[in-house]
């Protein structure tokens, strides 16, 4: 019988399938940050339970960390959260890249840097963007805090089997289109609920041509399509990325592992419950115009009108979004002016992202009245960028070069939009207020964000000088 990659991972991690009750799935790796874990540790303590497999956990502190003057956390409750995380990890001997580690950064950036996630693993974290690690062919998904506690105590999760969706992208991407644009184009097609109940497998030659960084950006946003997780089949690109990393298999175990990983790829002819196909040629650089990641359009387009939608709910959502975003139907995307530009987050905070942006910023200056800041996803990313002289390019162009953290991706650390300000942001969510109460977010790729900072409005980078 043929099986998809999802089914193979499921079968390999199934601990028990009781007649009455939920199947139990074994969890190989558990990622942790300060916001969604304290109540779980608290729960364990109250019940007198222990962390079962300490080696399966890797933690970081990222959401609350200021990106300027990082040790000076003014919010007392945020400070308490950081202290609680540090104390919980110490008490339980959990490997934490904490505030004073030179490996600190955003969880979904730090974990791959150390080769902590491998193909075939089941990986979870109290964070929806855990989907990022699907780039390695691992079944990685977000869980709630009660489940964080459950995994710590039992190393398993009560799980229901998901349906499978094959998302196939074939062809050559236009110049300047990136993994971020593929992700946005997919969400525009499926809608933010289109993937609900599914695990998406991304396939096709456009996907296999992506770097690991690109695959991470893509899988990161699978959750914005509503999918439980995203997956990319492991191949030589994956193996080359992992080889030699701290937590990668070593010595004799390396070839054994690679052989196992190769066996996980979906069988020829395996059946998926749904299929979505895109042509890479059609994916121009994307810009979101609304308050949901599905409200997105090519940079060459115009802001839609509620009457463009036959579906009543979507039409109403368009009306609400235009009001919140202060946009007019029919307005050209390239006529939208911005106040703040943010490059960073677990979607686009990797070295490749800063290289792409720096390429466009060389010898240019930020437009009058625009504030722009670059936030590397981790200290290793920051150090690498500085080695390559990228920080200079940003700074010379009038950008701020900050320390790592989640920053304005979710704005709970001091970096935020003021009421009514409009951003070009490389993060993943444009929800109302996500980047600050009353703030208006447009999601774009790093190159698009960089160009917008110089022009002061969105531009089609393909014909921009």
């Amino acid at each position, binding site marked *: 019988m043929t099986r998809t990659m999802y089914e193979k991972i499921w079968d390999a991690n199934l601990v028990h399938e009781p007649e009455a*009750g939920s199947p139990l799935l074994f969890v190989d790796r558990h990622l942790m940050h300060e916001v969604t874990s304290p109540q779980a540790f608290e729960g364990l303590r109250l019940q007198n339970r222990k962390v079962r497999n300490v080696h399966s956990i890797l933690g970081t502190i990222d959401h609350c960390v200021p990106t300027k003057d990082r040790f000076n956390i003014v919010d007392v409750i945020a400070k308490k959260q950081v202290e609680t995380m540090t104390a919980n990890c110490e008490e339980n001997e959990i490997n934490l890249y904490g505030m004073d580690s030179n490996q600190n950064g955003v969880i979904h950036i730090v974990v791959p840097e150390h080769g902590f996630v491998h193909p075939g693993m089941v990986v979870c974290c109290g964070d929806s963007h855990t989907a990022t690690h699907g780039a390695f062919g691992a079944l990685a998904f977000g869980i709630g805090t009660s489940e964080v506690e459950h995994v710590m105590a039992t190393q398993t999760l009560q799980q229901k089997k998901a349906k499978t969706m094959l998302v196939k992208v074939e062809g050559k991407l236009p110049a300047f289109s990136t993994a971020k644009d593929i992700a946005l184009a997919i969400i525009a097609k499926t809608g933010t609920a289109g993937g609900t109940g599914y695990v998406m497998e991304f396939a096709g030659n456009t996907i296999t041509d992506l770097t690991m960084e690109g695959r991470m950006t893509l899988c990161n946003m699978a959750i914005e399509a509503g999918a439980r997780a995203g997956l990319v089949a492991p191949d030589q690109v994956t193996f080359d990325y992992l080889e030699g990393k701290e937590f990668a298999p070593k010595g004799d175990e390396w070839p054994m592992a690679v052989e196992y990983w190769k066996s996980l790829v979906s069988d020829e002819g395996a059946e998926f419950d749904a299929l979505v196909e895109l042509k890479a040629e059609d994916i121009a650089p994307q810009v979101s115009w609304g308050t949901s990641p599905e409200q997105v359009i090519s940079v060459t387009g115009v802001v839609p009108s509620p009457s463009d939608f036959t579906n009543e709910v979507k039409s109403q959502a368009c009306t609400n979004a235009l009001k919140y975003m202060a946009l007019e139907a029919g307005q050209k995307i390239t006529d939208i002016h911005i106040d703040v530009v943010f490059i960073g987050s677990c979607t686009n905070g990797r070295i490749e992202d800063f290289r792409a942006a720096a390429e466009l910023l060389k010898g240019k200056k930020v437009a009058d009245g625009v504030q722009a800041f670059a936030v590397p996803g981790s200290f290793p990313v920051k150090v690498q960028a500085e080695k390559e002289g990228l920080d200079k390019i940003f700074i010379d162009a009038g950008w701020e070069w900050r320390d790592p953290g989640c920053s304005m991706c979710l704005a709970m650390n001091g970096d935020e939009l003021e009421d009514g300000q409009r951003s070009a942001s490389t993060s993943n969510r444009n929800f109302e207020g996500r980047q600050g109460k009353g703030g208006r977010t447009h999601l774009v790729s790093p190159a698009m964000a960089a160009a917008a900072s110089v022009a002061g409005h969105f531009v089609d980078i393909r014909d921009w000088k």
Partner: protein
Amino acid sequence: MQPYIKHTSIAALMDRSNVDTDQIIPKNFMKKVERTGFGINLFHNWRYLADNITPNPEFELNKPAFKGAKILVAGENFGCGSSREHAPWAIADYGFNTVISTSFADIFYSNCFKNSILPIIVTDEQLAALMAEIAGNEGVEFTVDLEAQKVITPGGLSISFEVDAFRKESLLDGLDDIAWTLKHEEQISTYEAAQRKRLPWLWPSA
């Protein structure tokens, strides 16, 4: 966990789709290290005026008729976005124990069951009928019977809904998930021992 008992309560109407967890509980209120006390900031950005204290009279849940509601009736794709369990904590802390919609985001849906909240999925037509009944008679009380898997309204609707049998039992009994799983300790240990042999690189060398 609280067992979920059959009840008749006020149903509040929230005619919006894609209500995301950032709206349910904005991140600036997520910094607590406890599970309680989030209810006061439920829907904060919609619920309060710019001074962050005065209730916004335009916001639906601030209507006097919806005071004390235990049932929330909302548009499609409720609970999308961030996985934060603070969202169901806030919903429960505010006083809701039931949310009715045509669809829920996956993580939110399963988080509800861990917090004695019953998420009920109905069809588009059923949702429209429930919403119409509330709109025409604000303050109306619906009966939710989990045992019988039914929502019953004074307007004469009787809607059957689906719920996973195991989740239903857990809600009705107020059962602790971890205790249930730990009954399978033997299977977990057996699995671990086998995995150590099969994929030794996943384990610390002894």
